[in-house]
């Protein structure tokens, strides 16, 4: 990682705006390809399903993008999402509390879990991989224990499913009933993009990933900021917990494992580097969309499931390779 011999990367900066647009191209190619292959693909209903399918993974990916930019990783996001959903269930269904308290419970639980991970990473200096792996196991177990391994249903809470499935836009524009879940994804993405681009927290997020020691030696309380970032990402997991439990109208305690890999994949496909210091929310959104377009498209084409896996693997590699070529080509 010297700064010698970086000719390869020297065009990065000037190309970076352009690059995002180009990463978008992979997505366009996929959409175009599937549209040609099946008339059923590019239908308003199906597009809305794809967007809806992106919402949970997208929110998780946006949250973990921040952590990855600091040079960390969070393996617990999948089970944390589940745990926040469970806690919402506890508050709403078992406790009979009003909806806002349930929302607070989800976000608060996520933030608290994130803060614990962050503390383990920053203060106890446990590598993020281990701290969050431990957290993932703990939260997985806790969800099962709290619920007694039974789902908690939200039947008692009027309109809980509307959080993700209702459509505020649909009421105004009946032709384009974008589900609220998608709006929430965009809102969260917008918020995090704003934080990353415009606030001190965002600045330190990049700085920590770029050279943590230099930031510390600039007199910045790096531990505190890092904990804040993990807590924020945890809160965002809580939003994902709301979305998924609203879609399923229940908190499913056994679900969640494996969601972290999918979210991290979206982040990396979106061009964020796992070694930290670099990344964009727009890229993450595109990465998440690429994943769900791919999954949906192959299903719409009725590709056999085992071939779906193979093709997904190949296309992920090709998409990132194309991106790579463009970067190299752009100087």
């Amino acid at each position, binding site marked *: 990682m010297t700064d010698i011999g970086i000719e390869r990367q020297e065009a990065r900066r000037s190309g970076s705006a352009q690059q995002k647009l180009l990463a978008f191209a992979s997505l366009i190619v996929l959409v175009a390809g599937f549209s040609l292959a099946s008339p059923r693909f590019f239908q308003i209903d199906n597009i809305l399903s794809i967007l*809806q399918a992106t919402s949970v993974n997208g929110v998780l990916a946006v949250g973990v993008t921040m952590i990855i930019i600091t040079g960390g990783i969070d393996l617990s996001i999948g089970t944390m999402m589940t745990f926040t959903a469970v806690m919402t269930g506890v508050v709403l269904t078992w406790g009979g509390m009003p909806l806002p308290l349930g929302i607070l419970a989800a976000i608060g639980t996520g933030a608290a879990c994130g803060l614990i991970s962050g503390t383990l990473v920053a203060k106890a200096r446990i590598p993020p991989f281990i701290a969050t792996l431990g957290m993932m196991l703990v939260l997985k177990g806790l969800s099962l224990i709290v619920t007694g391994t039974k789902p908690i*249903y939200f039947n008692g809470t009027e309109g809980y499913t509307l959080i993700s499935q209702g459509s505020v836009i649909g009421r105004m524009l009946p032709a384009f009933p974008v589900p609220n879940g998608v709006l929430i994804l965009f809102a969260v993405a917008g918020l995090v993009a704003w934080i990353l681009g415009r606030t001190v927290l965002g600045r330190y997020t990049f700085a920590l990933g770029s050279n943590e020691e230099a930031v510390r030696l600039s007199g910045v309380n790096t531990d505190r900021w890092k904990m804040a970032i993990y807590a924020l990402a945890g809160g965002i997991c809580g939003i994902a917990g709301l979305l998924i439990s609203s879609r399923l109208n229940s908190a499913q305690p056994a679900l969640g494992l494996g969601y972290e890999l999918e979210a991290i994949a979206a982040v990396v496909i979106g061009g964020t580097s796992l070694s930290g210091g670099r990344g964009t929310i727009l890229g993450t959104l595109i990465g998440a969309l690429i994943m769900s377009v791919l999954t949906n498209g192959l*299903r719409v084409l009725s590709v056999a499931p085992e071939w779906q896996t193979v093709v997904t693997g190949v296309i992920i590699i090709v998409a990132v390779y194309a991106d790579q070529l463009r970067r190299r080509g752009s100087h």
Partner: protein
Amino acid sequence: QDKMYVALISKGFQHQFWQAVKQGADKAGADLGVDVSFDGPDNETQVDKQMDMLAAALAKKPSAIGLAALDSQALIPQLKQAQAAKIPVIAFDSGVEGDIPVATASTDNLAASALAADKMAEFLGGEGKIAVVGHSQTSTTGIDRRDGFLNEIKEKYPKIEVIATEYGDGDQLKSTEITKAILAANPDIKGIFGTNEGSAIGVLNGVREMGAKIVVIGFDSGRAQKDAIRDGSMAGAITQNPVGIGYETVKAAVAAAKGEAVPKQIDTGFYWYDKSNIDDPKIAAVLYD
């Protein structure tokens, strides 16, 4: 002095179905005054994890072992070890090849899903396009339920066409997305069969989100399926008797450990339930929330 101890190794523990089995086993344990432990891997691919569990169970020197084998052939060496140590083995949920298990308490999944196929045909009037959302492409229950259903359709209902068979790992959200993709690709579809609780609820959610009006048939029970059957969004479902499976397994294990005779096959049965019979006490007894 020692209380008898029965170790149950299942195929999983997180799903409702397995919890119901465990519930039955615990009840039998209480009734018969024996200790019961229940363990299982995270998912139904982890054959070697199950092996390690069996090894740990053997180390505990139980009076008997109950086993829901993920791959019965693979486990044979360890089962022989159990046999050599004179620990009787009871197979549950699905059978174990060979003569090692002294008894098998299971559901005939092939027959159960053939019944689901018959019901599907009945609702569709014998023709139309349908799809299957399975919970596993490789586990024995997954294969049996898929094949039982598909074979019955192929043999008896030539006018029904199965246009897609997908697998959602029993994950509700994944099954939801699969269902939505199937519906988007085939607007003329008439029915979908979900092969376990998670798949069935996923199908239900997908159908609901797409606003489709089709016949949904499920498997197993659970609160959401029961509600859906009551409100008519699910036509009906097949249920096994998981509590019974657990109970009978422990009962047989205790008997075998005492050296008593046990029936080789314990059929715990399966039932079709729909709006009409869901509150029937006999059915209600085998459903779980």
